[in-house]
C-alpha cells in the first residue's frame, strides 16, 4: 500500500474514532481530531523526506482496479507539484483544528459533525492532489464540495446558507463543464487505444484531436479551474463564502481548495491540451493581470476584514495563474511555490482576523482601533502575516512573487510590468487595515480585548516560522519543485528565453 | 349499412363528453362525461376491429372497460369524500392543486 493511501486512510479512521466518541465529550472529540491531523502531518513530512526530487515521474504509485468496465482505477502518485500541495494541506490541517478550537460551537450541528467533516475533507484534500486517474480526481473534486458546503452552511456566520449555496452552485457549474470535457476525452481515448482515465495515457490524446475539439475540451477544464482558483470574473463566490465561513474553514477553502484550481491548470490543462493552452495563453494572462489589479483595488475598498483577505487572495491567484501560463521555469516554479506560501500567509491572516473578529464581535475594520497597544501579540501576528501578503523580501511570499514576475517578464514583459503595480497596491491594502485596526488611539469597545492565549500562540507560531524560514531558505521546496516544473515545460516544448542582450556573445 | 356511421356516432359522443367535462361544474356530471368519452373510444375500437377483421380492437375495448370500472370505483370514492368534507360536488371548489 502506498504511503499516500495510508495518508488518506488516516483521517478517515480518525473520523470513525470521532464518530464513536459520545457527543457530549467535546474535548475528547477535539483531541482525537487534533491527534489525527498531527499524525497525518507527520506522515506527510516523512513522505516529503522520502521523495526523490531528481525523479520526475510519479512516485509512491499505487493502482487498483475500481470500475474495470470503464477503465477506471484507483490510482495515486505524486510528483514535485502535488507533493508540495499535499504537504501544505496536511500541515495546515492541525493548525486549523488547533486555531479554531471553539469554531464548532454555535453551529447548526454538534462539534462531532464538525470534526468528522474536517477529517473527511482532509482525506479528500490529499486525494485530489494525489489522484493520477482522471475519474478519481473528478469524483473527489466534486465530493469535496459536500463537506465544505456543510461547514459553511452549518457553522458559519451571517448569511451562511446563501453563501454556501452560492459556493456550491458556482462549483457545480464548473464541475459540470469539466465532466463534459472528461467524457469527451474518454470517448477520444476509446477511439485511440482503448478507454482509459489514466492521465499519463490521456496526455497523449491531444495528438488525435483537431484544434476545435482540443479548444472546447480545454475550456471545459479551464473554466472549472478558473472558478476554483478564482480568476476574474468568476470570483464573486469567494468573498461571500470566506466571509461567512468560520476562519478555519476559510483557511482550508482559500488555502487548499482554491489551489485545486491552479493545480488543475498545470496538471490537466497544460498536460492534456498543450496546443489549446498555447492558443488561450494571451487571454488567460490578461485575465490573470486583471485579477491581480482588480483584486487589489477591491481589497483596498473592502470594509470587512475577511472580505479584504478574500480579495487579496484573488490578486494572489492572479499571480499564480500568470506564473503558470508564462511558460518559463521561473514562472512555473514561482507559481508552485506561491501556492504553498499563499496557503500559509493567508492562513495566518485569516486566523488572526478570525480571532480579532471573534473577540470584537465584528469583522468590520472600522470597529477596530489601536489593537497594537491592547493585544500586542495578536497585532504583531497580523502584521507579519500582512507583510508576507504584500511580499516583503525576507518573507516567503517575496521569493515566489518575484520568481513569477521575473519569469513572466522574460516572455510577457507588459503583463509583468502591469502586475508589478500590484505590489504598490498590496502595500495599500495591507497597510490601510493595519493603520485602522492596529494603530491609532484605542477606540471604545477595544480596550478590554484579550491577547492571544497559549493555544492560539502555539497555532500561529509554526505558520509564522514557516513564512520566515522559507523567505530566507526556500531551497528545500524549490529543490522538489524545480524538476517537476522543468518536466512540465519540457513536455510542452518550451525553453526559457535566452537573455536578449547576451545572445550575440 | 356502412360501418363508418359508427365512427361518426363515436365522434359525436366524444365531443359531447369533452364539452361536458369542460363546461359542467358538477363532479358527477363531469364523471359521466368522462365515461361518455371512454365509451366513444370503445366504440371506435370495436368499429375498427370490425372494419379490419381483427380482434385486437375488441380486446383493447375490454381493457378499457376494466380500467373504466376501476376508475369509477376510485373516482366516485373521491367525489363522495370531497362531497362529505365540503358539502359540495362542484369541482371548482376543490382547487387544492394550486399551491
Amino acid at each position, binding site marked *: 500500500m502506498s504511503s499516500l493511501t495510508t495518508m488518506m486512510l488516516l483521517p478517515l479512521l480518525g473520523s470513525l474514532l470521532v464518530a464513536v466518541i459520545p457527543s457530549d465529550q467535546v474535548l475528547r472529540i477535539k483531541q482525537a481530531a487534533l491527534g489525527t491531523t498531527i499524525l497525518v502531518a507527520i506522515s506527510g513530512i516523512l513522505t516529503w523526506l522520502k521523495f526523490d526530487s531528481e525523479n520526475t515521474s510519479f512516485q509512491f504509485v499505487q493502482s487498483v482496479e475500481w470500475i474495470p468496465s470503464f477503465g477506471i482505477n484507483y490510482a495515486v502518485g505524486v510528483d514535485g507539484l502535488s507533493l508540495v500541495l499535499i504537504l501544505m494541506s496536511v500541515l495546515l490541517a492541525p493548525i486549523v483544528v488547533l486555531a479554531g478550537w471553539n469554531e464548532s460551537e454555535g453551529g447548526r450541528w454538534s462539534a462531532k459533525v464538525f470534526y468528522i467533516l474536517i477529517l473527511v475533507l482532509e482525506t479528500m484534500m490529499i486525494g485530489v492532489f494525489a489522484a493520477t486517474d482522471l475519474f478519481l480526481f473528478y469524483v473527489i473534486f466534486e465530493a469535496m464540495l459536500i463537506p465544505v458546503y456543510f461547514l459553511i452552511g452549518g457553522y458559519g456566520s451571517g448569511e451562511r446558507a446563501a453563501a454556501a449555496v*452560492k459556493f456550491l452552485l458556482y462549483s457545480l457549474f464548473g464541475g459540470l463543464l469539466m465532466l463534459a470535457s472528461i467524457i469527451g476525452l474518454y470517448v477520444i481515448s476509446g477511439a485511440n487505444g482503448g478507454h482509459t482515465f489514466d492521465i499519463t495515457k490521456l496526455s497523449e490524446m491531444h495528438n488525435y484531436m483537431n484544434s476545435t475539439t482540443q479548444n472546447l475540451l480545454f475550456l471545459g477544464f479551464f473554466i472549472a479551474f478558473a472558478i476554483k482558483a478564482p480568476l476574474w*470574473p468568476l470570483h*464573486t*463566490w469567494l468573498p461571500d463564502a470566506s466571509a461567512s465561513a468560520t476562519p478555519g474553514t476559510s483557511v482550508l477553502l482559500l488555502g487548499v481548495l482554491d489551489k485545486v484550481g491552479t493545480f488543475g491548470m498545470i496538471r490537466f490543462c497544460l498536460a492534456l491540451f498543450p496546443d489549446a493552452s498555447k492558443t488561450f495563453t494571451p487571454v488567460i494572462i490578461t485575465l490573470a493581470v486583471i485579477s491581480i489589479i*482588480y483584486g487589489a*483595488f*477591491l481589497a483596498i*475598498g*473592502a470594509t470587512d476584514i475577511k472580505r479584504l483577505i478574500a480579495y487579496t487572495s484573488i490578486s494572489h491567484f492572479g499571480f499564480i495563474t500568470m506564473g503558470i501560463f508564462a511558460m*518559463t*521555469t*521561473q514562472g512555473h*516554479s*514561482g507559481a508552485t511555490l506561491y501556492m504553498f506560501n499563499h496557503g500559509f500567509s493567508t492562513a495566518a491572516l485569516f486566523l488572526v482576523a478570525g480571532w480579532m473578529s471573534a473577540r470584537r464581535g465584528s469583522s468590520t475594520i472600522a470597529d477596530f482601533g*489601536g489593537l*497594537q*497597544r491592547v493585544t500586542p501579540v495578536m497585532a504583531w501576528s497580523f502584521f507579519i502575516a500582512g507583510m508576507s501578503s504584500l511580499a*516583503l*523580501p*525576507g518573507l516567503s511570499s517575496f*521569493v515566489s512573487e*518575484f520568481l513569477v*514576475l*521575473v*519569469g513572466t*517578464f*522574460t516572455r510577457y*514583459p507588459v503583463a509583468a510590468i502591469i502586475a*508589478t503595480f500590484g*505590489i*504598490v497596491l498590496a*502595500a495599500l491594502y495591507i*497597510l490601510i487595515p493595519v*493603520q485602522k485596526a492596529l*494603530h*491609532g*488611539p*484605542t477606540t471604545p469597545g477595544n480596550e478590554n480585548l484579550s491577547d492571544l492565549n497559549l493555544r492560539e500562540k502555539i497555532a500561529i507560531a509554526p505558520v509564522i516560522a514557516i513564512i520566515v524560514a522559507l523567505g*530566507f*531558505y*526556500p*531551497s528545500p521546496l*524549490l529543490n522538489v519543485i*524545480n524538476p517537476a516544473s522543468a518536466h512540465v515545460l519540457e513536455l510542452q516544448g518550451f525553453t*526559457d528565453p*535566452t*537573455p*536578449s*542582450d*547576451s545572445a550575440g*556573445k | 349499412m356502412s360501418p363508418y356511421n359508427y365512427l361518426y356516432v363515436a365522434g359525436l359522443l366524444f365531443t359531447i363528453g*369533452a364539452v361536458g*367535462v*369542460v*363546461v359542467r361544474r358538477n363532479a358527477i356530471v363531469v364523471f359521466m362525461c368522462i365515461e361518455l368519452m371512454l365509451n366513444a373510444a370503445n366504440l371506435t375500437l370495436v368499429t375498427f376491429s370490425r372494419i379490419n377483421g381483427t380482434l385486437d380492437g375488441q380486446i383493447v375495448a375490454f381493457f378499457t372497460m376494466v380500467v373504466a370500472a376501476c376508475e369509477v370505483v376510485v373516482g366516485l370514492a373521491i367525489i363522495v369524500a370531497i362531497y362529505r368534507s365540503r358539502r359540495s360536488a362542484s*369541482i*371548482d371548489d*376543490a382547487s387544492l*392543486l*394550486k399551491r
Partner: protein
Amino acid sequence: MTTSTSLVYLIALPLAGAVILLLAGRRADKWGHLLATALSASSFGAGLYQLSQMLSRPTEERAVTQKLFTWISVGSFNIDAGILLDQLSICFVLLITGVGTLIHIYSISYMSHDENRRRFFAYLNLFIASMLLLVLGDSYLNLYVGWEGVGLASYLLIGFWNQKPAYATASKKAFVMNRIGDMGLSFAIMIAFATLGSVSFSGVEEASHTASQATLTAIGIMLLIAAAGKSAQFPLQAWLGDAMAGPTPVSALIHAATMVTAGVYLIVRSHFIFDAAPTAQLLVVIVGAVTLTFGAIVGTAKDDIKKALAASTMSQIGYMILAAGLGPAGYAFAIMHLLTHGFFKAGMFLGAGSVMHGMNDQVNMRRYGALRKFMPITFVTFGLGYLAIIGVPPFAGFYSKDAIIETAFNAGGIKGILLGSTALLGAAITAFYMTRVMILTFTSPERWEKDQHPHESPWLMWLPMVILAIGSVSTGYLFTRGDSLVHWLSPVFGEHEAHEEHFLPVIVVSGLALTAVLIGVSIALVKYQFSDVDAEAPQDVSIFTRIARKDLLQDTFNESVFMRPGQALTRILVKTDDKVIDGTVRLVGTTAIGTGSALRKSQTGFARSYAALILIGAVALIAGIWVVTQ
C-alpha cells in the same frame, strides 16, 4: 576574489539583537537597550576589523566575498545569499554602524521615559541589520531585501508613536511611496535578468559591456526611480517631511545619515550602467539638481526645526545624486559628501532632539530663541554642524560640497554652467535657511512660554553629539588629504582620466561658493538676527512663501493626481463588482426564480381548465399531424 567567513557577523549581530528583543518581550525591558547598543557597537568593531584586514591586503585584493547559501535557484535564475565587502561598502558599513552606535547611545537617554524603549531598540537593530544587508549584498536581489528591510524599519520607526493618527498616516505614506521606488528596482532587476541574464553586480557589470544602449538606459532609469523613492528625490520626495513624525534619533539615523542615502549608493554601485547610458545619467543629474533646489526652497519656509532639517537633507542628497550623475569624476565626491553629511546632519538632528528634549518636545522654531545660554554644548555641536553644512572652510562640508560644485562646472558646456550655477544657488539658499535655523533657535531673543525651563541634556545625549561634531570638523580634511578617499574608491569605479581642463580655476570656484554662502548668511542675519521675529508665523505673506510652506504643493499634486482618482477608481470598482459582476451572477438566480413564478400562474388548480387545456392540446396535436401529413 578573496573570500572570507567572517563577513556575516556584520549583519548577524544586529539582526540577532532585533530578534532577541522582539521575542523576549517585556522580560527584556531592563537590559534590551544595553544589549542592542552592545551588538551595534560590536558590529562596528567587526567593521573596523574588516577594514584592518582590508588595509593589510594589496589594492586589487581588497574586495572580499562570502557565500552563505544558495538562496533562490530556478533554471538560469541563480541567486546566492552572498556578501560583498569592497572599498565602497566598507565606507557605508563604518558609517552605518558608527553613527548607528552613537545614536543607540543617545537613544538610551532620549527614550528613557518611553515604556516601549525595548521595542524601539529592536527596530533600531533591525534597521542596522537591513541597512548593512543593503550595502553588503552582492546582487541586486540581495540589495532589494535590505532595501525593503530598511523601508520596513523606517515604517515601524516613523510610526513608533502611531497612537497619533497623523503619525500612523505618515508611516504609511513613507512605506507606500518607498514601494513605488521599489517597483522601479523590481523593474530594473527584471530587465537585467531578461536582457543580461544576471542580477549580481559582477554579472551585470560583465554583461553591460556588450549590452545595448536601450537596455542600459532602461535599467538606469528604473534604478533612478528606485533611488528617488528611497532617497526622497524629486518626484518621490513627499514622504520625508512627514517622516519626521518618528522619534528624533530615528530622523538622525535613518532619515538623515543612512537610509535616505541608499539611493546614492545604488547609483554609485551601478556606475557601470550609468557610465554606458548617457540618457539615464542625464536624468540622474536633472533629478539631483531639481531636488537640491527644491529642498532648499522648502527649507527656507519651515518653522518646524525637524522639517527644516529634513528639507535640508533632501537638498543635500540632491547634491550627492547630482555628483553621482556626473560620471566617474563625481562618484567619489558623492560618497564623500554622503559621509560628511552623515556626520554633520546626524549631529544636527541629535542637536534638534536635544533642544526638543529641553523644550518639552516643542518643535516650532518661532517658540525658541536664546537657547545658546541654556544649552551650551548643544549650541556648540549644532553650530559646528551648521558651519559644516553651509560649507565654511575648514569644516567637512566645505571640502565635499566644493568638490561637487567644481565637478558640476567641469561637466562641460551649457550643462556644466547650468549645473554649477544651480549648485551655487543651492549653496546660497542652504546658507540662508541654516543660518535662519541657528538664529531662531539659539541666538535670537527668547520667545518661549514662561512655564518652559530649557536645560542641557544629560551626558549620554551630548556625548554622541560631541563625537559627531568632531567628525563634522575633521572628516572633510581627512578625506581630501592627498585625495585619500578618491584613491581608496578608485578600484571600485575603475580607472579614468581625470578631467584636466577646468572650466574655472579651483580657487575661483571656491571663491564663488564662499561668496554665495556669505550672501545667504547675510540675508538671514538681516532678516532674523537684526529684526524681530514673531512667535506666530505671519500669515500675510507672499504667494511664494505660502507655496513653499506647503512643500511646493507636492502633496496637493499627489493627492489630486494619484490619491483621489485612485480612491474614485476603488469606489467604482467596488460598485462594479457588486452591481455588474456579482449582479450578473445574481441575475441568473433571480431569472430562474422569476421564470418559475411566472409559469406557476398558469396552474390555477381548476380541474376543468386543465381538462380544457388537455383538449386544446390534443386538438392542436391532431391538427398539427394532419397538416404535416397532408
